[in-house]
Every structure is written in C-alpha cells, then in structure tokens.
C-alpha cells in the first residue's frame, strides 16, 4: 500500500472515529464544559431569569461566606450526613458482601433479598420511610415500643431528622452497588493466598485484615471517592420527606443541594445558586484530591 493510501485510510478511520464518538463530544461541549463556564460567569451576577442580569462581582460569594447562616447550616447538614453515610456506606456493604460470599445453599435468594432495597426508587423509598418513621402510627416506633423504648420524633425533630435520612439511605445502600462491587472483588481474591494463610493457621480476623482488605483496596478507593461525591448530592430524600420540601424542621435537613435548589428554583437567584454550585465543585475536587493523595499510596493494585 502506498504512503498516500495509508494516510487516506487513516484519515477515514479518524473521521469514522469522530463520527462514532460524536455523542460524547457533544455531551462534553453541551452538558459539561459549556455549562461549567456559563455557571462560573453567572455566579458573578444577580439574575432571576425574568429581568436582565445585574453584574455584582464577588457579592454572591461574599454573601455566602460571611452573611448567610443558611449556607453554613446546609454545609454542616451535608457534612453531618456525609460523615455518617460514607463510612457506614463502605463498611456495611462490605460486611454484607463478606457474608454473601460464603458458599452455602440458597445464596442467590439471600443476594436478591439484600439487593432489592437498593433498586427501590428513592422517591418510593422516601415516602415508605416517611410512613415507617411516623411517630404517631409508624412501624419503627411501634417496634421500639415493644422493647419499652419510646421512639424519637424522627422527621419532626431537628435532632433526629438527619439520623432518619441516614437510616433510610443506608437501607438502600447496604446491599446496593457498593456491595456488588465488593462481591466482585472478593471473588477475585485468589484462593491460593487464603490457602497459604490457612497453613499458617491464621485466624479469620487476621486473614481478613492482612489479605482481604489490602486486596480489596482499589475497590475501597473507588467506592469512597464516588461515595463522597454522591453523599454531597443528597437531595431527593430531604425534598420528599419534609413538608413542602423545605428541609425542615428548623432547616435541619436543608442539605446543600436542597438549598441550592431553593435558591435557584424557588427564589430564582440563579447567580447565587451558581456560586453555590461552584463552591460544591471545588469542595468535591479538594476532597477527591485528598483521598487520592492519602489513600492512593496505600492501594494495592494486584
């Protein structure tokens, strides 16, 4: 084949390639890069969409950091949620995966039982748990009552509303995608490693600690990184489980994205909401960077 022929074949292949990946290129331009730049610009304006935007420089950021108690409250609520749901959402699915990795009869049925809650749509899960946690006639407090415990007010108490949402979220997570990922990972741990350990008479716990967990570290890194990103975006539970979706009682479930939603689509402060989105973006970037830095070295790539 001549040189010219080869290069024209190459050009044809390149054209075909761009053709095939066109949706991804459009996605990048229209749904990612473009909007990010736009949102950065909008964050310096006061804009309610109905009247023309006003350029107000850094005022949204100043307002957010120095004058808006609800911004800090929503950040605190989100950190509270994250601080519980990320570790719990890592450990509990891992324990479930370990259990489901045993070789015993009926395992497919067990796996299905644990997996089902995670495919329940969050809206359906939220109304269900709103009902189960109802202090007047809910199931949960009735069960606690059997043991002589007076259950809390859950979604009606600023102290218990976040735990209620954590509980509900954990129910959906314990057997969910994280568990599947761990299960896939556990099945990939070579048995020869365990057999070597067995000969040493290593106890179960030492075996898990020294073999399973290091072998699973890339999976943990992945679920932790994704877990943080998702935890910061908690929205639907709080929107559905509170009156008018306002994040009550006393703003105790006003999570970051819920507040952002209020600002954007209730008060129509697009500039302020964009500034909030950018802060969220930066926070997530920093946390993800820290995780890679701290954990990346310890991850054992098999």
């Amino acid at each position, binding site marked *: 084949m001549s040189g010219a022929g080869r290069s024209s074949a190459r050009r044809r292949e390149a054209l075909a390639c761009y053709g095939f990946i066109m949706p991804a290129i459009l996605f990048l331009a229209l749904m990612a890069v473009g909007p990010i730049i736009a949102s950065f610009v909008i964050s310096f304006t006061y804009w309610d969409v*109905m009247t023309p935007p006003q350029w*107000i420089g850094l005022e949204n950021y100043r307002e957010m950091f120095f004058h808006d*108690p609800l911004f800090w409250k929503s950040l605190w609520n989100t950190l509270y949620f994250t601080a519980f749901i990320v570790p719990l959402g890592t450990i509990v699915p891992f324990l479930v995966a370990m259990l489901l990795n045993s070789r015993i009869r009926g395992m497919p049925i067990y796996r299905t039982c644990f997996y089902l809650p995670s495919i329940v749509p969050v809206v359906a899960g939220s109304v269900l748990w709103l009902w189960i946690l109802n202090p007047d006639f809910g199931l949960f407090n009735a069960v606690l009552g059997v043991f002589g415990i007076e259950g809390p007010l859950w979604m009606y108490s600023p102290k218990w509303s976040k735990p209620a949402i954590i509980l509900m979220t954990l129910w959906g997570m314990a057997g969910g995608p994280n568990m599947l990922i761990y299960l896939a990972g556990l099945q990939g741990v070579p048995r020869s490693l365990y057999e070597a350990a067995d000969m040493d008479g290593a106890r179960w716990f030492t075996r898990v600690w020294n073999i399973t967990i290091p072998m699973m570290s890339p999976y943990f890194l992945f679920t932790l990184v994704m877990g943080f990103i998702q935890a910061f975006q908690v929205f639907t539970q709080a929107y559905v489980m509170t009156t008018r979706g306002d994040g*009550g009682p*006393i703003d105790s479930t006003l999570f970051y994205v819920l507040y952002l939603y209020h600002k954007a689509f*209730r008060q129509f402060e697009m500039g302020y909401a964009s500034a909030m989105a950018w802060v969220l973006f930066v926070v997530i970037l920093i946390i993800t960077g820290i995780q890679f830095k701290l954990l990346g070295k310890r991850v054992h790539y098999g």
Partner: protein
Amino acid sequence: MYPFPRPFLFSLGILAVMAAVLIGCSERKPDEGITILRMATWASDSGFELERAIITSFEQANPDIRIELIYTPYDYYTEKLLTLSVSGDPPDVFWTITETLPYLASRGVAMDLTDKVANDPEIDTALYFPNALSLCSYGDRLYAMPRDVACFFTVYNKNIFDEAGVPYPEPGWTWDDFLETGKRLTLDENGDGRNERFAMTPYLMDVIYQNGGQILGEDGTVAWLNSPETVGALDWWSDTILEHGICPRAQEQQGFGGDLFVTERAAMTFQGPWMIGWYDEQCDFDWDIVGFPGGKAGPKARLLGLPIAISPKTEHPEEAYRLLKFLTYSQEAQTLQAELGIAMPARRDIADSEAFRGQDVMPPGIVHFIDAMQNDTVVENVFPFYSPVKKAYQSMMDTVNLGEMSPQEAGDHYQTQVEREIAKARRRGLL
C-alpha cells in the same frame, strides 16, 4: 443473535412513534372562533370538581371561551407558576398565594389592573370586605382581584366545655379569658404528667397581630421580629405551651394520630371557614364558632384570601379580564361558590346573605366570623423579598416552640437575619 429480542426493539420503536405523536399533539390547535384560556389553580380532588362547576357556568354564558384548568399542588404552586412564566408559557389567569403577589408583581408576572378596574363602570369596589383589595395590591397598584377572603377563628367543642363546667367563650373574650378557660379544660386523668386532653390544638399564627405587631414595618424597611409587640406575643404564646401546657408541644403530639380536635383530645382549635364542612362531617359532638380572644390590640386576625391575577403575556387580555371579573365580582359566581361551600365570597353583601351563612353546615356562631371579617382583620405587610423573611419567621417560631431559645433570644437572632434580607433587597432593587 441480537442483544435484545426483536419484539422488544419493535415495541421500543412503537413507543418512540407514540411519543413523537404525543409531543406533536401537545401543540394546541384551537377551534375556529374559540379562545382557550388556561387558568392555574391548586384546587385538587373534590375542590377541583367544584371549581369546574363555576367554570362551566362561565363557559355557558360565554360560548366563545373555553377554560383549561392547570392543577399544581399548593406546596409547590409558586415555584411552578414562576417557572411556567420564565418558560414563556404562563397561564393566562392564575390563583396567587397572597404572600407572593408583590414578588410576582415586581417581576412582571402579574398584570397591573389598577386603571382597568377603576375605569370599569360595572365594578363597585365598596362591595368587597374591608382590606380585601389591599390583599391584591402592592404599593398603590392593583395586581389581582379577590375571589375568597377569610380569617381564622376559634372553634370549640361544646360537650367538653359542658362536661368541665366551663362557660362557652363569648365575643369580646381576651387573652386572659383564654388562659383561664384553657387551664380548666386541660386534663391529665391518670396523673402521669402527660395530658390526655388539651385545651387547644397547636397554633401559632395570629398572636403577633393581636399584640399590635407585624413581621415587617409598613414600608418594608424595618424588621419587627424583636419588637416588644412580637416578643411579647411569643412570650405569651410559648407560655401557653411550655408553662401552662394547655396546648401540646411538638413532642407531645406523638401517639395521638389524626386531628386532635376531631378526636376530642383538644377542646378548641383555631381554624378557617374551609374546615366547617369537614368538621360537620367528622365531629360526633356539638361545636360552635367564636372570634379570636383579644390581645392588647384587640381580637385581630390576619386577612387571608384568594387573589386572582392575569398574566401580562396573555394573548387574550379581554377574555381573561371577563373571566376574572366573573370569578371575583359577579353575583352569579360569588353566590355559586358560597352555595357550593367552597369558600367565603370576597363580596360581603353575598357573604352576609343566606347563600353563605344560611347553609345547613353553618353553626350559629358563623355571625361572629362575619363580624370579625368586617371589623378585626389585619393585612400582613408583604414585599417582593418576603419569602426568605417568612422562612426566618417560621424558624423563629419553631425554635421557640421546641424550647431551644427564649422568645427574646430568638427575636434578636432572627432580627439580624431579616435585616440582612432587607439590606440585600435594597441592593437588588427589590425595595
């Protein structure tokens, strides 16, 4: 071997075509000579049917107009209305929540009706209840017309009063009378420190008006959250809950289930006329109505109502105005809505007639309610930036109700928050 069975692909294809057809059909194609008006409401269920009945009578009188009702739940009403307006496809006529009217007006979502109404020889605004038009105005311009008006009042369970040997509340009763009555009605039968019966269901609304307060001053530049009137009112209110226990705290409602008044676990409740039909259906006991107990400013009640507005973007302003006038002013619609038990008409001549107060469900005390509507209503001072202000006020009430802060502390705390909102509104040109 395809990844999906062919029938599956086939059905997907069919659905795609269906969707295309549906999307295509959703473009409205009106018949010749008929104007279609879209009206947004939050009336649902049975309420929707009743609204439909009024609309039908309008359509019969105006065969050239057809009305499409758009329903949005009350909780999400304003955000959906604003988004529809932003999208360039607003409803021609729409109900409004009074607290949001100034915002809608300032953003150009509601049409200025001042001149139109003033120049309309058929309309005599003196026929409305006092203050009803202020509810529809911002600044000195009129942006809506009132269809219903109402205020809260006291509903009491006569059986419990008789049983406790307490005289019924009478018009002109005061906060002191309320407290005295309340203490005698509260009951802890088994002495476990938890009341089995309360004097009152949880309430928080109108006390600040009865004490001469408001959330914001008249021109919106001053916040009154820590004013002596507001704090005094909250002090009194929180004492009835936290000290005297005549009204349950948030924690104490647990295990009760259902409406406390209907299940006779509370002897009184503050409610509005829209509950009368439901109480008539649900209550197995005798009950009646009396006005609010009076504070130092008298038995003041916040005027509530249903203003209806027109979009400035409507393509049919004349037809929209005809509908608006029919709903809010015409003898026919106002009488019909009274008779259907939907709400109290904004026209006092009709509210004070047999059509409204003569209905079977009405207790004799309904006259006290009409009295209060004539003499004791207050209009909340509302501004375009009111939504975060009202939210701060709610949080303040919740904080006090849960005993987390004293009224003075809560007042001071939320005062600064609201003052910042005022300053911000100034910078943004909302004030």
